[in-house]
C-alpha cells in the first residue's frame, strides 16, 4: 500500500475518532494526581500539550514537502506544503489560547494575566509569526510557480530558525521555563507523570496528531478542487 492510499484510507480516521473520544471522556473524568498549584488544571496536558505536538508534526510535514518541491517542482508538493502550514497555524493558535487560559490560573502571581516571560511561549510566538509571514508572502505573489518556489525557500529558512531559537534561548542566562516539570516546578516529567495520566496522554497525542493530518488532508483536497475549478474557467 503506498502513502497516498494510506492517507485516503478510512481506518486511521476511525482510530483517530476513537482516540479523541477516549481522550475527551477520560481526560475530564479519569482520576489525576493532586499536585500543588496545578490541581485539576493538570488535565490541560491532554489538550494544550497535544496541540504543540500536532503543530510541530504538521509544520515538519510542510518542511518536508517544501524541500521536495525545490527538488521536484510539482503542484502537488506545493499544495501539501502550503496547506500543512495553514493547518499548523490553527493548531498553534489553539495551543497558545489553551496555554494562556491555563497560565492565568497557575502563574497568576507573575504579574502578567495572559502572558509570561517563558521560553516556550516565546518559541511558540516565533513559530506563529514566521508562519503567518509565510501566509502573507504567499498572498503577495500572483504567479503560481514563483509563489511556490519563493514560499518553499522561506519555509525552510523559517523552520530552521525556529529550531535554532528553541535550542538557543533556554541556554542564555539559564532562563528556565515556568512550565510544569521545569525549574523545580511540580510537573509531569518522567518521574511523576503517573501511569493513570500516561494511559490518557499517549492516546491523546496520537489522536490529536492524527486529527491534524486529517484536517490537512481535507484542506489539501479542497485546494486541489479549487485550483481545478479555477483552471477550468
Amino acid at each position, binding site marked *: 500500500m503506498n502513502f497516498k492510499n494510506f492517507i485516503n484510507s478510512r481506518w486511521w480516521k476511525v482510530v483517530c475518532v476513537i482516540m479523541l473520544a477516549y481522550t475527551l471522556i477520560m481526560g475530564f473524568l479519569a482520576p489525576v494526581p493532586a499536585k500543588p498549584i496545578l490541581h485539576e488544571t493538570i488535565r490541560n496536558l491532554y489538550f494544550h500539550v497535544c496541540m504543540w505536538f500536532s503543530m510541530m508534526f504538521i509544520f515538519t510535514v510542510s518542511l518536508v514537502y517544501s524541500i521536495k518541491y525545490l527538488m521536484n517542482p510539482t503542484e502537488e508538493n506545493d499544495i501539501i506544503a502550503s496547506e500543512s502550514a495553514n493547518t499548523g497555524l490553527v493548531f498553534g493558535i489553539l495551543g497558545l489560547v489553551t496555554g494562556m487560559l491555563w497560565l492565568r490560573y497557575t502563574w497568576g502571581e507573575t504579574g502578567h494575566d495572559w502572558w509570561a516571560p517563558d521560553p516556550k511561549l516565546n518559541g511558540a510566538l516565533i513559530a506563529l509569526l514566521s508562519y503567518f*509571514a509565510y501566509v502573507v*508572502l504567499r498572498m503577495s505573489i500572483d504567479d503560481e510557480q*514563483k509563489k511556490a518556489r519563493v514560499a518553499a*525557500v522561506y519555509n525552510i*529558512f523559517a523552520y530552521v530558525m525556529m529550531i*535554532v531559537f528553541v535550542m538557543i534561548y533556554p541556554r542564555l542566562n539559564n532562563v528556565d521555563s515556568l512550565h510544569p516539570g521545569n525549574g523545580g516546578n511540580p510537573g509531569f516529567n518522567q518521574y511523576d507523570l503517573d501511569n493513570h495520566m500516561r494511559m490518557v496522554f499517549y492516546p491523546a497525542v496520537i489522536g490529536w496528531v492524527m486529527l491534524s493530518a486529517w484536517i490537512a488532508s481535507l484542506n489539501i483536497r479542497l485546494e486541489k478542487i479549487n485550483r481545478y475549478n479555477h483552471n477550468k474557467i
Partner: protein
Amino acid sequence: MNQLAAIIQRELRHELRSRRSWLAILLYISSVVYIAYLAFQHDLEPVTWNALFWILTIFISMFAASGSFAGRESEMLYIYTITSPHKFIMARLIYNGMFMLVVSIVAIAIYSLLLGNPVGSGSIFFITVLLAVWGISSLLTMAFAIATKGGGGFALMAIISFPLLVPLLITAQHLSALSMMPDPTNYTGNMASLLAIDALIAALCYLLFPYLWRD
C-alpha cells in the same frame, strides 16, 4: 576567486558613486538616535541602553538593507550571463556584511555621542557587534531576495525577517549585556552559538539562493 573579488569591487564602486544612499542612511541613523535621545533624556540604565541599542540596530540595518541590497533589476540580466548564483550570493554576503559593519560603527558612534556608552569590555562588545551584524546582514540579504520576488518591498521584508532575526538578536543582546558587567565571564559559549547561527544562516543562503536566482 577572481570573480568574487570582481563582483565585490563592482558593488563597492556602485555604492560609493551614489552619494544619495550614504547621506540617506546617515540621516536616518541620526534622526532615529536623536528621537531615542529626546525620549530618554540621558538617564539610561545599562539594561535599557542595551535593549534600545539592539532595537535601533534592527531598524537601522533594515533601512540600510532595503536601500543598498536592492538588486538593480536592469543589471541582473548582465549578471546572469557572467556569474553563477553561488558566487553571486557569496560576494553579496561578504559585501553586505562589510557594508553593514560600517553602518553599525557609524550608528554606535552617534548613539554613544548622544546617549553615552556604558560598555566596560570593548573587545567583547565589538566582537558581538561584528558577529551579530554579519548574521543580520546575511539574513536580510536573503529576506530582501525573497521580498523582491514577492514585490512587497520594505513591508514584506520586515515581516518576513523579524521573526527570523530573533535568535540572533537575543544572543547578541545577552552578550553585549555581559560586556557591561565589571568582570564578564561565561561569554565564550554564547559567542560560539552566535558564530554557529551566523554560519547556519550563511549555509542556508548558499543552499537556497539558487532557487531565487532567476524566474
